[in-house]
């Protein structure tokens, strides 16, 4: 190595060093610096050295590099070593002009000569031995994440951050959908305020080195550490399994609710609700029977939690705004009804804010049926049972029922031999590791995650899922490296709920906000949380357009397609 690289570098450096002597004012120093730089330069040359035109490249590059060398050594370092101030005044630099010329010429000479000399030596004595190319290590650890919701995608993103360029760990994300749905804005899609795809981020764009598998999980073999998929024979082996399967709508069986209610969980649900509302208006416009028309213009939402309240607030704005396009429909026939089983809506918020939300929505035209449960649903109407102030049962004629009153953890978890709570959520330790199952982790809506400080289970919200995913990624890395795991703790930042035009409620770190400011806060915060710059811009554009133009009432799904004629 020294013969082929060091020696030519030494000779060329010494030769070129003669050009530095004037600048240093000292023969030995000039030659020594030249020799050191020459050796360092030739060792830094690539393998193999020979390619057409390389000498010209290196000569000019090294010559250009002479300038910063002059600035660093002659102007600054040498005076400093001599106990003087750096020579960076105009007069000082003029004095050092010969050294500048010397460095530029030295660089050129070194680049040209060293390339030629090494080339010559390698022709005479053979090519410089090259260390074998670094072999890319094989994948040793497979991490499989089940679920493409907030919890799953954030876990994948954080795992990528934890392991960065480590090629020994591979990640696979299994998801039934190919996009991450930003659920806080789902109500705005149903209310035609936002375009459906604008609140969904493609999974393949969200992750960088994670392999995305679009499929449904049909089973998990915990003993053999394999995941079975519904649409293929092969199974996914894993060393670490992350259960982020989320929750599904809990529609009570029987009494027609499951058959007649629209759900509000997925993007398709939101699109369907929007189209259904537009369809109902079109049908009502053509309907001469007042009772039937009233039923078509009555929209019932069951469930007064966040999703129900936000949906009913948005639908109310959308439907009342649509009246301008349907002059034949009297405004008094339009009814938006929220059915809730308790005495106040929004139990996640404090009573004063919930009351504010209720009053504001009521003022904007929403009807509330509190302390009432949906008992029967059928085509053309629903039956409600009221507990207070006095028990009663009554009917509402409607063609639209949306069910938002509850969700349960993914039923797939029922098949696993792991500990679950009464809802069916996986019980995990505060490190997010599933109890008694090393290498199996769970988070998000499908898990009961105890807070390390309070011991209480964390709420199943996106806010917590994102923080859980960070802790989980760190703990998987720690588990692989044999390091101690960190317990999960997070103090909720607060909750926000938008219930209509320029109207929202917010409770942040104990501070309560309502009205326009809370609405502005809601939009700002959720826009910042929406994954992907492109989606942010699209949503912002949608909101801006809404300032100037009415909401779109184009029906994109034909809910009553004509029967196909038989070709036989």
């Amino acid at each position, binding site marked *: 190595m020294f013969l082929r690289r060091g020696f030519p570098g030494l000779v060329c450096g010494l030769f070129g060093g003669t050009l530095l002597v004037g600048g240093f004012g000292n023969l030995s120093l000039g030659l020594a610096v030249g020799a050191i730089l020459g050796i360092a330069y030739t060792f830094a040359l690539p393998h193999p050295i020979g390619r*057409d035109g390389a000498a010209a490249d290196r000569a*000019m590059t090294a*010559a*250009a590099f002479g300038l910063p060398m002059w600035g660093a050594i002659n102007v600054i370092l040498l005076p400093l070593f001599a106990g003087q101030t750096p020579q960076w005044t105009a007069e000082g630099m003029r004095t050092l002009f010969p050294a500048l010329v010397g460095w530029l010429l030295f660089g050129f000479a070194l680049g040209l000569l060293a390339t030629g000399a090494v080339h010559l030596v390698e022709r005479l004595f053979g090519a410089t031995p090259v260390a074998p190319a670094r072999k890319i290590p094989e994948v040793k650890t497979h991490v499989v994440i089940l679920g493409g919701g907030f919890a799953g995608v954030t876990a994948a993103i954080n795992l990528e951050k934890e392991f960065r360029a480590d090629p020994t760990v591979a990640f696979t994300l299994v998801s039934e959908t190919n996009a991450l749905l930003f659920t806080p804005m789902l109500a705005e899609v149903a209310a035609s305020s936002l375009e459906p795809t604008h609140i969904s981020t493609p999974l393949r*764009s969200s992750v960088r080195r994670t392999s995305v598998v679009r499929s449904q999980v049909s089973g998990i073999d915990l003993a053999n550490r394999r995941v079975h998929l519904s649409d293929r024979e092969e199974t996914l082996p894993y060393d670490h399994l992350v259960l982020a399967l989320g929750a599904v709508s809990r529609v009570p069986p029987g009494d027609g609710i499951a058959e007649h209610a629209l759900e509000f969980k997925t993007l398709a649900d939101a699109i369907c609700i929007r189209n259904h509302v537009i369809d109902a208006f079109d049908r009502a416009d053509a309907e001469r029977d007042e009772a039937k028309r009233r039923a078509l213009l009555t929209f019932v939402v069951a469930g007064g939690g966040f999703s129900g309240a936000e949906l009913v607030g948005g639908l109310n704005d959308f439907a009342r705004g649509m009246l301008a396009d349907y002059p034949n429909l009297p405004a008094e026939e339009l009814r938006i009804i929220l059915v809730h089983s308790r005495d106040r809506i929004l139990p996640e918020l404090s009573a004063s804010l919930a009351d504010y939300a209720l009053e504001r929505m009521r003022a904007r035209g929403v009807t509330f049926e509190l302390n009432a449960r949906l008992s029967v649903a059928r085509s053309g109407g629903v039956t409600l049972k009221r507990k207070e102030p006095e028990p009663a049962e009554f009917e509402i004629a409607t063609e639209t029922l949306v069910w938002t009153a509850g969700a349960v953890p993914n039923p797939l978890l029922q098949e696993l031999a792991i500990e679950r709570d009464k809802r069916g959520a996986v019980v995990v330790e505060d490190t997010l590791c599933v109890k008694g199952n090393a290498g199996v982790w769970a988070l998000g809506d499908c898990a009961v995650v105890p807070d390390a400080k309070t011991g209480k289970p964390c709420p199943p919200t996106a806010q917590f899922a994102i923080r859980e995913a960070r802790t989980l990624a760190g703990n998987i890395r720690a588990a692989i490296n044999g390091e101690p795991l960190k317990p999960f703790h997070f103090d909720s930042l607060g909750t926000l709920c938008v219930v209509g035009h320029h109207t929202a409620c917010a409770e942040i770190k104990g501070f309560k906000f309502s009205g326009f400011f809370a609405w502005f806060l809601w939009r700002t915060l959720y826009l910042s949380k929406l994954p992907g710059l492109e989606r942010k811009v699209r949503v912002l554009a949608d909101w801006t357009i809404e300032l100037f133009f009415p909401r779109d009432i184009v029906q994109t799904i034909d809910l009553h397609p004509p029967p196909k004629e038989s070709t036989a």
Partner: protein
Amino acid sequence: MRSRASFLFIGAIVGVLGAAALFFLGLVPGIGVVFGGIFGGCFALLTRFRATTPGAGLLWGLSFSFLLWLAGPAGILPKFMSNTSMGMLDMARAHFAELVGYLLLFGAPLGLLLGAFSAKKAAAHANARPFSLSRALVAGGLAGIVGGWAFGQWMEKAHFFPLIAGLVGSASPSVGKSLHFLFAVIIGATFGLLFQRDVRGYGSSAGWGLAYGIFWWFLGPLTLKSLLQAQKPDWSLAHGQELFGSLIGHIVYGLIVGIIYAALDKLWVGFFIDSDPINRQPEGPGSRTLLSLGRGMAAGLVGGLVFWPQIVAVDGLPWIARLAGGTSPTLGLMGHVGTLTLFPIWLGASFTWTTAAAAGALSSLLGHLLYGAVTACVFLLLERRHQDWMRLDPRYAVRLARLQRPLGTAAPALWFFALGLGVLMPILLS
């Protein structure tokens, strides 16, 4: 690829002709014609695989002739001829005319002709986009107008327009201004023609623009202006010093042309080429720009902090602070770190492009070089850190490979010419 002999022949012939012209002007002795042939041949052999386009050839030729001047009349030659020390400033100043001659009569024609002769001019590298004449002329011309406007601010202040008008026998500032913009458009368009293949981003384009601006200072006010007025060009140091403001103007013009050209070129490519879904990249240009800006800001902050001691040492902070309407050194530091690149614009209100001002700012030049070097190194580290990670994804690996500077460009020549002359000229002329 043409044969080595044909390159050698052309290089030698052009070298001889260039040296003969220098001899005719009394800038080299008779033996210099022989050396011209030898150096021309050497240059042709050395850059046979590099001077692949007229633009690349021009840069290689200019840097090679600048190096010859450094090694010859300004550097080593006097040591042997008169036993003086190597590289003395007075000696370099005394041979300023040779520098102009070497660049314009030897390096430029040699590089341009060899670049035009090269058979590889279709594409310097595999990933290069196809050359577009219309893109080069439109983007270059528009960039020239913007650069010309910036340069024109100084020309107006220095009452330079009547001098330009003198080229067509007029003394009207309006005529001078019209001519100035005409030249600015022509130079901008030729920039596009010469360097479109080499422009890879804002940074590299600014570099090409800087070098091209310096070249045009030698060619324009120092040479062509006199020739168009049927006078012998005055290549003396004194005349160069008189035109120092014009040199700064050409540098500013070149930088602006480079940056605006890159912006327009990107816009053009984005609108007509990249917008085609077939050419879609994993990341949108917006995300890439934001990422680069973030890393650039971090790197600039580190570079600015390194530059800070030098600013303090030369008592520059109060001066910087005045730009922000205050006198506090702390404010100066904040302004300096945060808005270093905005200085030329801020200074635009009272710019003084004189040799005296340049002498006063020489120390700042060194500081800026340090700042640039540190910023570039930190930026590179941040990019590499990110790239190592991204490389695991084949989609990004392909894009990153495409971003690598391909071998065989004239970038090394650009670095030497722009850096060398950028530092040497203020020292020489001030």
